[in-house]
Each structure stands twice: as C-alpha cells, then as structure tokens.
C-alpha cells in the first residue's frame, strides 16, 4: 500500500520558499524608512542566528546558555578579517566575510562542542553557561586583542566596489544580509531532512535508544553543534558588518545568549519557522517596544513566563494549532471568544501597564516631576486617584478575562474532542 499521494507537496514547497524570497526582496521597497531598513537588516541576520540556535534547542534538545560565544566570535572574525583585508590590500570582497565568520564559529565549536556535548540535559545547560562566561572573561582579559571597552570598528566599504556595489548604503547591506538569510535558511531546512538531522531529533527524543541502533550519541550532538556554530558565526559576522563595530562585552555576553534563548523560545522551538518569528519579535521588542516603555524587559519576562507555562511551543505552535482548527472548520465558532479575550485582555493590560509605568516613572524619572504621560493621558503619580483607577481597571479587566477564558477553554476542548473523533472515524475507514 502506498503512502497517500500528495501531488501538491512540491507546489506548496515552491510557493512557501518563493514567497519567502519575494518577501525578502520586496520588504525594503515597501518599508523604506531608515528605521524600517535597520529593523529589516537586523531581522535578517537574527533569523540565521535564531535558526542556528534552534538546531541545538528545538532539534537537538540541547538547551544552551552560551550561544553568544559562536555569534560573538563570528563577529570578531569578521572585524579582524575586514581590517586585515583593508590594511593589507587583499582583494577579498565583503561578501565572503560572513563565510569567514562561519568558519571561525565552526572551528571554535569543535573543541568547545566536544566538551559541552559530553553531557546532556540540564548539565549541558550549565556547562554552556560556564563556557560562555569563560570566553567572555578571556576576551575581557585581553583588551588589545578583543578591543576592550572601545571595541573594534571597521569600515565595510573597504576595497574595490563589487560590480558597482560599495555596501556603504544600508539598503545594499540589507540585500547582502537577505541573500545570506535565504541561503542559510534553506540550508538549515535541508539539514533537517538529512540522516544527521534526523538522528539529532532521535537523540533529542530518546538518547538511550539511539545508542542501541548503532549511533554514538555524543558524535551526533557534536557534529550538529559544529554545524550550528557555523551558521551562528555567519549571523554574527553579518551583525558586525551591519553595525560596523565589535564590542566583546556585548557580543559575547551571557545577556545576549539569554536573549537568543528567550526569543527563539517565544517564537517556537517545535516548528522550523518558529525561530524566524522569534527573530522578528526580538528586533521589534528591542527597537520599538523599548522606545515605548522603559518597563519592556519586565513585560518580556512576564510574557516569557506565561509562554513557558501555557504555550511551551511558542507563537509558532499557537499559530499551527489554530491552523489545525481552521482546517477542520472549527475556528469560526472561536472568533467571538477570541475577540472577547482581546478586549478584556486589553482592559486589564491598560490598568496593569498604567501601574507599572507610574512605578517606573517614580523610580527612574523622579526628577522630571510626578506626572507621567501614559498613552497621551497625564497621570499624577503623587495623587491617589490614578493609582486606584489603574488598580481597579486591572482587577476588573482580569476578572472579566477570567470569565471569557473559561468559556474559551470549554469551547476549545469541545472542538478538540470533535476533531479527535473525526480523525478516529477517518482512521476506521482506512
């Protein structure tokens, strides 16, 4: 008996990848402000970085707190290479510099990966943290080599223009990033369909069993670790090219590693495209959200915590779960409840955010007087009314949301049960 024929598979593939490529090409033309271009460029290389991180976490089950080592050293390699090329008049164009970063990332991953992959699970996580700290500490110890506090800056327009392109203007850098983004994404996707990629998944699911089908678990992890390091290095190199500076304390820091972890997880580790969403969220949060409110890290922490507890598959899984609902025609009945959740959620958030903003204002901007601008409304943090009002809003909003949430949960599980029985019925017919 053959597997069910899926003639639309190649077409679906083509559409997805073609669409992705088209989006990459067209995006800066639609959003052409310099801020937008900056955001798009950052998203471009962060997609590579987050996908490389998910190779460890989502595909391999290796929770790493030290990914910044590989991206950071890729950045470092890039600036050193560029300075070397320009100082010694070597004709290697900017386009190959990311590959240098990738090579360095992979090379560093060889010894560090060997040590790291000796253990799995939570021990691996701690080791990755320790190694990350080790590398930062070494870099800080050698300021002449790693640039110290001032960092190392470069001029990305070094050398001869390549076919008329100097990579001075941001738009040209964007397209360089976009090309690498597309190619690396495609390569990392291809990896998931190779024997090593699949065995990596097997190791994640059941490392003991893997040994009993003939594979050395540590080697599977180690090789994948190196490949992940390669792509991380490319991403890091592109970051250095984008900002034209490398700062060791920032690029190699545990904070950066933590950010990669946080946003890749938010995006979703169980689907291939999850980290892409994570990369987008990361840039939007750090560039836009941070402008909106100084409490953005607090919100981020909350969102992350809620995600881990209630939606450990991230945004990607939330999307896919709803896609499944729609596929079975059950999504329609949930629209109203989604709307209710949105409205009550917004009410609650208005109250909570007001409270947080007022607290932050008193803490950080006390010198600017007691009044804080909250969504255009001036709130006097010295008076009692705004506090009571905000608290009331928060509590009422939360209570209402709880009510809607319960009805939503009921409707959801009913729909799930219906889907299950439909699948059973279809299965029985086979």
């Amino acid at each position, binding site marked *: 008996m053959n597997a069910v024929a899926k003639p639309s598979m190649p077409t679906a593939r083509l559409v997805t990848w073609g669409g992705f490529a088209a989006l990459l090409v067209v995006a800066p033309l639609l959003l052409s402000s310099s801020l937008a271009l900056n955001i798009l460029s950052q998203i471009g290389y962060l997609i590579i970085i987050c996908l490389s991180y998910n190779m460890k976490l989502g595909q391999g089950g290796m929770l790493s707190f030290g990914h910044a080592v590989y991206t950071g050293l890729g950045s470092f390699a890039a600036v050193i290479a560029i300075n070397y090329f320009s100082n010694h008049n070597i004709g290697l164009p900017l386009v190959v510099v990311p590959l240098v970063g990738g090579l360095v990332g992979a090379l560093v991953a060889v010894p560090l990966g060997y040590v790291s992959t000796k253990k799995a699970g939570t021990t691996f996580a701690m080791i990755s943290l320790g190694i990350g700290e080790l590398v930062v500490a070494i870099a800080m110890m050698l300021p002449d080599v790693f640039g110290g506090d001032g960092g190392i800056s470069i001029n990305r327009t070094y050398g001869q223009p390549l076919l008329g392109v100097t990579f001075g203007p941001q738009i040209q850098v964007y397209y360089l990033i976009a090309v690498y983004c597309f190619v690396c994404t495609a390569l990392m996707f291809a990896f998931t369909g*190779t024997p*090593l990629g699949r065995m990596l*998944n*097997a190791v994640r699911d059941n490392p003991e069993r893997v*040994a009993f*089908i*003939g*594979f050395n*678990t540590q080697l*599977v992890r180690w090789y994948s670790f190196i490949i992940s390091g390669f792509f991380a290095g490319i991403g890091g190199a592109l970051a250095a090219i984008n900002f034209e500076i490398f700062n060791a304390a920032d690029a190699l820091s545990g904070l950066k590693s933590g950010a990669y972890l946080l946003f890749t997880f938010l995006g979703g580790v169980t689907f291939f495209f999850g980290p892409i969403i994570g990369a987008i969220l990361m840039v939007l949060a750090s560039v836009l959200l941070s402008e909106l409110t100084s409490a953005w890290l607090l919100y981020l922490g909350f969102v992350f915590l809620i995600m881990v507890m209630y939606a450990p598959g991230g945004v990607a899984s939330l999307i896919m779960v709803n896609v499944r609902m729609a596929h079975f025609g059950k999504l329609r009945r949930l629209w109203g409840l989604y709307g209710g959740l949105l409205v009550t959620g917004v009410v609650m958030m208005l109250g909570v955010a007001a409270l947080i903003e007022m607290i932050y204002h008193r803490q950080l901007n006390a010198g600017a007087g007691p009044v804080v601008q909250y969504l255009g409304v001036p709130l006097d943090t010295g008076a009692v009314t705004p506090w009571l009002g905000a608290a009331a809003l928060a509590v009422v909003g939360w209570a209402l949301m709880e009510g809607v949430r319960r009805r939503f949960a009921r409707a959801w599980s009913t729909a799930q049960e219906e889907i299950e029985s439909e699948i059973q019925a279809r299965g029985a017919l086979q």
Partner: protein
Amino acid sequence: MTYAIELKDLRKSFGKTEIIRGANLAVQPGERVAVIGPNGAGKSTLFNLISGRLTPTSGEVWLNGQRIDGKKPYEINRLGLARSFQITNVFPKLSVFENLRCGALWSLGHRYTFLRFLSSLTDANERAETLLRQVGLAGKRDVLAINLTYAEQRALEIGVTIAGGASVILLDEPTAGMSTTETTHFINLIREVTEGKTLLTVEHDMGVVFGLADKIAVVVYGEVIAFDTPERVRADARVQEAYLGSPVADAQGGMH
C-alpha cells in the same frame, strides 16, 4: 563451535548486593531461547549486561566469538546485537516510518552524513517500507509514535529493534501488558521477523515461552540453573521447585 552468545561466570554487584552471581550460558546461532525466572531473579539485568547498558563486575560476555563486555552499547549494536525494551523505548515525536528508517540507517552505511537527503536513500526507505509491512503497521505509516496504541507501540519497538539487521536479537518482555489475542498475534510476528536469527527473550507468559522457544534458560537468584529444551526444563526438579510446577503456569501453557 562459535556460540552466538556466551556468558562466562558473569557477575554484577550493585554496591554490596550481588545481583548476578556467576551466570553461564552458551547459545548457538539460530537458537530461540526464552529466559524465564521469578521476579527479581536478574533477567533484565542480564540483558542489560549483554547489551552494554551495564558493565559487569567480573566475568565475560562473548558475541559471535568476540568479547563484548565493557563495550559501549553502540559498539555492541554495530557488532550485530539488537535489543528491545520492557518499557516502550521508541522515538515519540517521529512517525512510525521515521522510527523504522532511523533504526536501519547505521547498518546500511549511512553514518553521520548531512550531505544527502533521507528521501533519496532508496535502500533505507525500502527497508523501512518492508519493516512497516512486516510488523503490520502499514496503515499507520505517518502517525507519530506517541499516538499509537500500546500494542502498536510494542510492534514498532520490535520493528526498530530488527531494523538494523542484527543477527542476535534480545527482546525484553515483548508481550508485557497485552491481551491474549494480541499476544498470540505477537508471537507469530516475533517468529516471522526473527527467522534465522538468534533470539533471546525474557518472558513471563508460559504460553509464549513454550510456543516460541527452542530452549529455555531458567534464571534464579542471578544464576542460570537450567538451560535445555522445554520438555526437559519442565521435568527438571530444581526448576519445578524454584519456578514452575504451579497450576497457573500449566494453564497458561495450554492456552497458546
């Protein structure tokens, strides 16, 4: 004569407690051996010692004339020994087909390569398809292992075990938790897929034992006290004293 499996005075202690106290066994190639014994006798421990999951405290384990005690599990597997587990031990988030294909990869020579696509490995794909039919899961090709029924998971477990083409198969309580019909079906499945191979299986169900095995090895308190054909083992006084000789066992023996 090269034995498929040979245990020479095998011992294993956990701290001060000696669990395996000098086990000796010599299984010829192609033999089907059922390993029986009271609970806690050390049957699973023996399997773990043979397959490399545990290291012996002393003694030797030989596989097809090669000494394997102290080797790592993946090394032992590559020398031609495969095992299944008492608690289903497959890859939950991979589909049935993927599970089987993974089991076949190493033996077909596809190592840690990332330069070829799984979809292009015709030998691995064909082997997986064959296994799919053999274990009777053809209708569940793309179902995730975690979504299978218990019996189906056990069937997949066997499939993954034999996927690598090992010549010596260890099955640890393959029919544990199954109903009578499921068990009968399973015995036939096991008999088919282990045609021509050496089989060691730990079993509690006497029906399975007498229906499947050429020889029975009786393990009591960490020693192999008898290793012979079913009739002679049944008649052995020591075995009767230690294990068989109960009405329940006789009843089960008559069922399958």
